[in-house]
């Protein structure tokens, strides 16, 4: 019980949440729910984390675990341009640089978008407007937030394209997105996101649509640019290899909630949640001897309308019966501290988890 209350304070329970945040970005008990004909889809259901400038947070999880919804929520893109009656219901707090975004004036949040916080999207072809040149799109992004003439903005666009490694940037600036290769498009997208030196950069699966050789280049680019600009970066992915390279901290999401978070090496080398074990087991690794097969996480992601009672992972968890009294199926586990700044939401005791990890899981990886 002491563990539970301690965790509650640390992740920022609503009762203790009225004070302003100290971290650069702090998300407290974020909930994003979408009303549909079939019921309320709880895409994100109580997520909390902190991120400092110059640090990278990796958010990992399967499709539908709420990663992208979280990032769009921070950007305020669930409420901007929502037409019709089916509006997303968002609650909680998002503090960016001392400002709470969810209660702020939408026009103020709009002005922060693209300037203080920017986003790189998954598929750069569909994320760039096909009818405008790369230059026009970067110039537009710059001029919304800077009162400069077109010539200055264009110079800035060329400069940014050069920074992200586009050859002949003064010529390519006048190309249309369809005239760029996939990797170049993503570079252009990054140039557009960084044109205003944002302090927070959210990269939503930035390499998923790219081939492997280009993936590494793009990740290097993001890392270099982060060093240069000192931004805070959230990188969202289902690819653990990506976060292993970039992230300082890792947050593992399942069914709209955080199941484990902590420093990257802790989550990688001493994971304390069965779902994280599953993710690690399903990841191909070149640094280990050849195994028979990858071990998939059995079953499919939970319905976000009827989330399983108790631990959302219990139908797929091979260790669901380890805790006593059918606890996994009746009580939802809260995040508890399992190491220094390392948290996991699981009913198993620390000893049980450590034993299973060292005896059963780690040898097979």
């Amino acid at each position: 019980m002491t563990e539970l209350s301690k965790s509650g304070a640390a992740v920022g329970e609503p009762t203790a949440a009225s004070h302003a945040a100290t971290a650069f970005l702090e998300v407290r008990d974020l909930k994003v729910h979408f009303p549909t004909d079939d019921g309320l889809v709880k895409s994100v259901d109580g997520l909390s984390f902190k991120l400092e400038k110059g640090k990278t947070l990796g958010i990992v999880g399967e499709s539908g675990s709420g990663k992208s919804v979280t990032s769009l929520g921070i950007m305020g893109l669930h409420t901007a341009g929502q037409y019709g009656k089916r509006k997303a219901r968002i609650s909680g707090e998002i503090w960016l640089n001392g400002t709470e975004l969810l209660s702020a004036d939408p026009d103020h949040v709009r002005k922060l978008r693209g300037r203080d916080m920017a986003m790189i999207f998954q598929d750069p072809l569909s994320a760039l407007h096909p009818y405008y040149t790369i230059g026009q799109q970067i110039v537009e992004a710059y001029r919304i937030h800077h009162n400069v003439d077109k010539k200055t903005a264009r110079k800035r666009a060329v400069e940014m394209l050069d920074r992200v490694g586009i050859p002949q940037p003064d010529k390519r600036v006048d190309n249309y997105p369809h005239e760029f290769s996939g990797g170049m498009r993503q570079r252009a997208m990054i140039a557009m996101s960084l044109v205003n030196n944002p302090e927070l950069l959210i990269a939503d699966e930035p390499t998923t649509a790219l081939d492997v050789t280009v993936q590494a280049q793009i990740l290097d680019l993001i890392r270099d640019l982060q060093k240069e600009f000192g931004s805070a970066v959230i990188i969202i992915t289902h690819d653990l290899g990506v976060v292993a390279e970039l992230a300082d901290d890792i947050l593992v999401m399942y069914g709209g909630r955080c199941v484990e978070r902590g420093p990257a090496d802790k989550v990688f080398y001493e994971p304390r949640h069965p779902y994280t074990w599953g993710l690690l087991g399903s990841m191909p690794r070149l640094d280990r001897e050849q195994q028979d097969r990858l071990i998939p996480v059995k079953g499919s992601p939970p319905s976000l309308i009827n989330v399983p009672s108790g631990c959302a992972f219990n139908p797929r968890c091979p260790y669901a019966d380890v805790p006593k009294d059918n606890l996994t199926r009746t009580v939802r586990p809260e995040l508890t501290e399992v190491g220094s700044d390392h948290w996991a939401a699981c009913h198993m005791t620390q000893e049980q988890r450590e034993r299973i990890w060292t005896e059963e899981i780690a040898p097979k990886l």
Partner: protein
Amino acid sequence: MLAYLIRRLFAAAVMLVVIIMVVFGIFFLVPKWAGVDIALSFVGKQADPAAVAGVREKLGLSDPIYMQVWEFFKGIFAGRTYSAGGDVTHCAAPCFGYSFKSEQAVWPVLTDRFPVTLGLALGAAVLWLVFGVAAGVLSALKRGSLWDRSAMVVALAGVSLPIYFTGMLSLAIFAFGLKWLNAQYVPLDQSFTGWFGGMILPWITLAFLYAAMYARITRATMLEVLGEDYIRTARAKGLREQTVIGKHAMRSTMTPILTMLGMDLGALIGGAILTESTFNLPGLGRAVLDAIRNQDLPIILGVTLITSLAVLLANLVVDILYAVIDPRVRLA
């Protein structure tokens, strides 16, 4: 861009020749294969055998087909002289045929009627574009609202109600009942206000039908575009919502609307038969209707040709505008 333009113009020129040949084929070859005497339909069934023989000779119907096609082509560009013995009929270039029945060249009939139809089509197009597109965009942005539902019901009515119904109804109410507008066509060069007043009801009637179609297409396209990733990107940049909609979303929404506009305008310039006959406008549509009634083949042929040319021209303009809007088209 230039290469695209040249390619497109060349294609249009080829298409032009093909159209003329197909139209010629429909009017001269098909009856021949069907065993119908064309000369008879050119003069009228009650004509005496001598007149029929004269027309046959004037049209060169006994000549080989390639000669007939050539004469027909030559007539369009250089004019044509029909002669049989001492009876000579001259038809100045561009000769689109000569009506032996009404004893007049077809071209002056077309040029006479054309401004009426053009005025009708263009005026209605402005109306339906403004109201149809605006209603469609509003419906998309307020999807599911009372406005959306009522606009779409009105649009459904607009698409389903025939022009002779809405036209007659508007005439009965506004021209004959309330006497707000006159039901008489006044040529533009006589009086602008008279022309304008007389055109209001035809414009509204015709535009109602098309505005309904355009509203539905605009709504559907806009909804699709609003779901695109690049709209989300535009918002993520921090653009104002009116810029996101008015610039980024509208540009993509305009593409299918433009295609439709080209086709519709082309077809309408060939004559809005129903509207013109309902409102008694002396346009191409009326001309062709009268010609069909009188079995005046050359006039029908002329209007058919002009209609095809208008569609061809409209499509050419649309294709060029297309390349201006969508850079990807320039490569195709």
